[in-house]
């Protein structure tokens, strides 16, 4: 068993299922992010680990000890809330010392630890200030210090950066990660911001409607989504529905809606052969597509990996161009290219070239992937 294990946990509120059979098991020191849209169950899962709510079914283990029945104050956890929840009537020092006081640590040791913690978050000198005198970012850091100073087994963060402005948010990402690495604490981080998740995590669990759809490293989540929701939620991907087809014994392809056939040649042979006849999702990122005007002569191969479309929109971003292309079946595809000089015009007919190595196929049912 890893350090933090969540096993088949379910929670219902009235008729709504908030958390549906969620499980994961992570090693000590891992930074796990629960990522998903509002209402996907990530915050509820966090609160179940913290002990603020009780699961209807399932069990949670911290360091091999079952936590059921234990109220939050008997679990060795540290929580950082979205609104920081700093005690307004206590100074920064008193706030950070609170958890230690509850653990009946001697005063002189408390003083030392608080000083170290404030040093760590770079708030030395702020001891006697009150929360209302601090900026959002400073309050955030006090909240972190307060949670870290008690050296919890698990650190839980509930969208801690949502209330900060963009610049501060980006800065704090590195701060939090840095502190977590120094302290080596097992961390569960909740956010709906995929940029944050990709930048900070060792593991990401993408959630939707109470389930974990995929739990994997950031790289794999981004490049190998195993579920169409994950593909769509993370980064920008074009997702096209189609049916896998074996063209002949060596060649495979996908029949998109409207009858457009994308020949994939020898690549992706095995997977497609397996899915033959099944509905699949084809995922490819805009930066892995390119546009060409029809060449005067074409080789047989060229003809196969091109799909015809019409430019609907163009967006100039400075360092690159983005085009929205409408395929013959009415579906829209986003293409990103660094070619900013030789531009296409709106309404112009063009051909989209797929980079097969970067193409990703998912079965329609989606693989719900839990480690």
């Amino acid at each position: 068993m890893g350090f933090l294990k969540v096993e088949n946990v379910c929670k219902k509120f009235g008729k709504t299922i908030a958390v549906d059979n969620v499980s994961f098991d992570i090693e000590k020191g891992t930074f796990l992010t629960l990522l998903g849209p509002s209402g996907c169950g990530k915050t509820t899962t966090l609160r179940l680990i913290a002990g603020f709510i009780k699961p209807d079914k399932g069990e949670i283990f911290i360091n091999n000890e079952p936590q059921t029945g234990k109220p939050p104050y008997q679990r060795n956890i540290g929580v950082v809330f979205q609104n920081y929840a700093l005690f307004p009537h206590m100074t920064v020092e008193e706030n950070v010392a609170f958890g230690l006081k509850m653990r009946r640590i001697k005063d002189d040791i408390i003083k030392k630890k608080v000083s170290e913690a404030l040093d760590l978050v770079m708030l030395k000198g702020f001891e006697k200030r009150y929360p209302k005198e601090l900026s959002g970012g400073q309050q955030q850091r006090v909240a972190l210090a307060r949670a870290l100073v008690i050296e919890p087994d698990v650190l839980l963060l509930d969208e801690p950066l949502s209330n900060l402005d963009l610049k501060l948010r980006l800065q704090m990402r590195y701060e939090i990660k840095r502190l977590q690495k120094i302290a080596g604490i097992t961390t569960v981080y909740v956010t709906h911001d995929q940029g944050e998740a990709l930048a900070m995590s060792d593991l990401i669990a993408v959630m939707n409607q109470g389930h974990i759809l995929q739990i994997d490293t950031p790289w794999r989540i981004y490049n190998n989504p195993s579920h169409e929701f994950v593909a769509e939620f993370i980064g920008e991907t074009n997702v096209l529905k189609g049916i896998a087809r074996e063209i002949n014994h060596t060649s495979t392809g996908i029949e998109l809606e409207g009858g457009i056939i994308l020949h994939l040649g020898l690549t992706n042979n095995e997977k497609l052969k397996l899915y033959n006849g099944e509905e699949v999702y084809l995922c490819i990122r805009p930066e892995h597509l390119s546009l060409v005007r029809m060449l005067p002569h074409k080789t047989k191969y060229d003809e196969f990996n091109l799909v015809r479309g019409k430019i609907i929109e163009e967006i100039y971003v400075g360092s690159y161009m983005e085009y929205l292309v409408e395929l013959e079946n009415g579906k829209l595809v986003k293409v990103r290219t660094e070619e900013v000089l030789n531009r296409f015009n709106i309404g112009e007919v063009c051909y989209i070239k797929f980079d097969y190595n970067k193409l990703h196929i998912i079965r329609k049912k989606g693989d719900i992937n839990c480690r």
Partner: protein
Amino acid sequence: MISKRSVDIVSSYVVKIVLIITIIFLFFPVIISITFAFDPRNFPTFPPIGFTLKWFENFFRMRTFIEGLKWSLIIAVTASGISICIAIPTSFAITRNEFNGKNILLAAFQSPLIVPGVVAGVAFLTFFRGFLNIYSALTNLLIAHTILTFPYTLRTIGAAIAGLDRTLEEAAYSLGANPLSVFRHVILPQIIPAMVSSFVFALAISLDDVAISVFLTDPYVYTFPVTLMGYMKVTFDPTIGVASIILLVLTTIIILIIDRLVGIDKFAAFGIQR
């Protein structure tokens, strides 16, 4: 045809005049009554003629007034204190739970407000003396005043407790505080302003009551307002004016305390019934 403009001007003036008359109506009687306490005449009028402190001497010489003031303070402080101690757990139960019959209970808790004072007085007298045989005026007055102040303390403290930030309590729990510690370190400090202001508010209500108290006093234990009422009916002289000044000063102090702690505009925001 009178122009709209002139209608506006005239109506504006009329309203302002009504306003000023009302303010004078409200304020002046009290101001000039202060001067009456220093006027040597037995039945003073305005403008004052002389200046004397004999009424003050008279007031402090009267044992009944001093005794009455003493009992009033004892009863007011104790009853208000008990009222608040009951209001706190009740407010928690009300704001954080849903249960059947909650509305009926809430209405019952507010019922002392709609019962006329003398009705409550007769009811208390009948039940405590008649049925329960409690002859101690002090006990009866304490119970009555606790009930009298309860709707007020419940409202003010209830509002404060309803407005608490629950995440602070969750943070405390997550840091290892058990429920008692959470109450002591997180909840209590936050509701202290509301506690103090409802305490002094309850003091004002209790010190002012005469309709209920007059039924429950006895020759040994009586309240200040009841004594004053007796005096005013028989003798009427500026000694009452001295009592007036004392009570005015008390009221002003109470309002200042409430303003400092909670802010008078917030306090005035809900319909308070006397």
